[in-house]
């Protein structure tokens, strides 16, 4: 167990290093940050001087070494665009993204499980067919189209919900939350639904197919033969057996929700990390980009690590393999 964990940790560090190297290498192609920082009318001498001051003229390996050294200490430099320390910016933006991701995950899981159950238990009813067709839209329409569609229906036409922003936020110990105000909740609804739609469809379809599968197995037939109540069979036995893959997928999807939130945040002008990143890309704001990529990689690697370790706990076969000698 310990050696397994150490091995996994070591691999995670390697992955992180590789991500850092790759992302850093890519920054050579995003363009010249200087031309954004100084406006069109600045002379060459001034631009060169600024480039020098920022250390952009140093060779790649020096820049990368400096970046690694600072990153280990949690320092990512100062944003070229906003002229503020990047770690501060990310900490400031994180609550917005995490709240959005949290609500989306809840929506996706609750509605996904419910929808999956309905369509799995009554595969031939018109309601199930309606849900399935509707969910097809969820996977096939791109996120930004769904977002803009929702804005036009609920903000422009019906005037029920705001089209952009986070509403009023309340500062609780440095965490700026939108959960404490009515306008905060109103602002959260559309982006959360937009972000949740794809994941919801995924969960719904996994549960449905798993349910169909499990309901055909012998132990369900046997449970029926024993005369157990329908409710107990469906929820106590069938649903429980479908949940293992769902938990795995949901765990991993939290990572991609954070990654996907870039598009949703851009459409709704949601002041989270994703919109910080995308504006950073357009500006060639290297410190922001590198910090964000490393952070997202860290999220993924951590979640993966936890999932791997959970497998180890849950699945007895993995443990016996490790003993060796079989």
């Amino acid at each position, binding site marked *: 167990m310990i050696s397994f964990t150490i091995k996994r940790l070591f691999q995670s560090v390697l992955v992180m290093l590789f991500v850092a190297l790759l992302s850093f290498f890519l920054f050579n192609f995003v363009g010249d940050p200087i*031309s954004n920082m100084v406006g069109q009318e600045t002379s060459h001498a001034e631009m060169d001087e600024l480039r020098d001051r920022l250390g952009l003229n140093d060779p790649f390996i020096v820049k990368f070494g400096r970046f690694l050294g600072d990153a280990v200490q949690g320092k990512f430099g100062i944003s070229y665009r906003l002229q503020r320390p990047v770690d501060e910016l990310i900490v400031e933006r994180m609550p917005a993204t995490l709240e959005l991701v949290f609500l989306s995950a809840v929506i996706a899981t609750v509605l996904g499980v419910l929808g999956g159950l309905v369509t799995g238990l009554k595969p031939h009813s018109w309601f199930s067919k309606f849900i399935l067709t509707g969910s097809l839209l969820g996977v096939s329409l791109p996120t930004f189209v769904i977002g803009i569609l929702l804005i036009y229906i609920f903000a*422009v036409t019906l005037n029920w919900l705001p089209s952009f922003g986070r509403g009023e936020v309340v500062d609780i110990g440095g965490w700026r939350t939108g959960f404490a105000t009515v306008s905060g909740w109103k602002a959260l609804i559309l982006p959360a639904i937009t972000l949740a739609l794809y994941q919801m469809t995924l969960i719904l379809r996994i549960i449905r197919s798993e349910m169909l599968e499990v309901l055909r197995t012998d132990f369900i037939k046997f449970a029926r033969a024993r005369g157990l109540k329908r409710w107990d069979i469906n929820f106590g036995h069938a649903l429980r057996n479908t949940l293992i893959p769902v938990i795995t997928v949901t765990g991993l999807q939290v990572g991609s929700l954070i990654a996907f939130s870039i598009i949703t945040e851009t*459409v*709704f*002008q949601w002041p989270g990390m994703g919109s910080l990143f995308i*504006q950073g890309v357009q500006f060639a704001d290297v410190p922001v980009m590198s910090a964000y990529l490393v952070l997202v990689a860290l999220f993924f690697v951590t979640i993966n690590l936890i999932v791997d370790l959970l497998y180890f706990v849950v699945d007895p076969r993995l443990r016996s393999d490790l003993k060796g000698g079989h």
Partner: protein
Amino acid sequence: MFNKIKHLALASSVLSAVVIGIASPVYAEKILRYTSVADASTLDPHALNAQTSIMVASQFFDGLVMRNPKMEKVPALAESWKSLDENTWEFKLRKGVTFHNGNIFNADDVVFTIERTKAATSQMKGYVNTIVDVKKIDDYTVHLITEKPNPVLLDQLINVFIMDKEWSEKHNVTVPQNFKEEEETYAVRHVNGTGAFSLELREPDVKTVFRRNEKWWGHAANKSNVDQVVWTPIKNAATRVAALLSGEVDLLTDMPVQDLERIKSHEKLQVMQTPQIRTIFYGLDVKSDELRSSNVKGKNPFKDVRVRKAIYHAINIKAIQKVVMRNMSVPAGMLIQPSVNGYNASVDENRLPYSVEKAKTLLSEAGYPKGFSVQLDCPNNRYQNDEAICQATVGMLAKIGIKIQLNAQPKTQHFPLITGRKSDFYLLGWGIPTLDSGFIFDYLVHSDGSWNGSGYGSSETDAKIEEIRGVVDPSKRNAIISEIWANVNADLPYVPLHHQVIAWGASKNLTIPIEPNNMPRFYWAQLK
């Protein structure tokens, strides 16, 4: 006994509070909600020479000189000025002006500001680089001494915003942000100006709230009834327009051209339009001996003026205006727009006509009857429909045999090609903050110009450009300016396309003058 009195006092104060509450009419604040595509990077008025930063600074700060809605120069913090000799200007400062924190404005602040603007970390150096000395004569008189006569000093000073010396020293912001020091300076998110609005709230990228400065000296001359401005930048164009349509904002700049009609036809909204001080054109490498991307080897077709003219004739600017720009452009014959000194309307009117025949003839005469191939570099996130303009041009030039490989990319990749003189053929737009031709000459026409990607220039033109930097007499100066333009318009290192037109969308409750420099001034806004 004491308790009783206390209770009584409390009761009476509660009562009077209630009475006052009822008696005084509830005053509804006039709040202007504004959106644009991007936020200002910093509130430091000297840290960045960018349109958004200047727009924001002009609400919080005053310069010595400002422009009125007609774009004329009028006194601001300087009440009057005169030139004592050809290198010395005397400014008489306005008395009784205070900064937002109550500090008194005087000559020390002017001296301090000019020095701060000249600091190594300042990006606004270009506006003050001719000033060699600033002298405080008394508390309300300042002398500016220039290196040589500077005809555009007043125009430059408009963008030099006066900061408070005491405040800057107290918060350790006597020089603008230095990126090398990895910390945020106080002036990035805090403001202490003399301007029409003070800063109430600053959340970068999210929300900025401007509060009316009741003590502003300029309220009499600049009428506005706005108490508060809430600025929320919205990056996505569709969302930005949706926010206007749903009534969540009152004013929108950076309007997507395709939504113009929709906003126009909305019963509660209006569209304002004006030509912008920015002209879009193609630059051609007229200097290199061989083009980098062409199939013509050993020589450079763009060196031949007939080829440049052929390209000019081949571009159907009316079609671009109608289809690509949806009439949000004015076809141009020169690189400056009517409000810039040196503009000549007849050149715009007599731009070379669209004619495929003429273009083909010119190409044959130049020795390329079958045309040639070349790469066109184009930005895709800088100007209105920039990439679409280039795409349209690809088809038009194909008709005369010039095969274009289109290279459209973000401005961060595009601009270095131009400043590094690595492009054969490129799209560029140029705006002129000083409203004087000298500005564009310095950058685009002088052979050492930092944005002169065409490589155009001769020692004679260079000499003329250097000469007008120091000529104060307007008629003499303008004569040289028109000589230079005549050369440029004949040589065509740049093929002019159009002047951009800007449009703002607004609620019908709002009146605000639309300005060619695309900066809304909230101190001219009236809300119903």
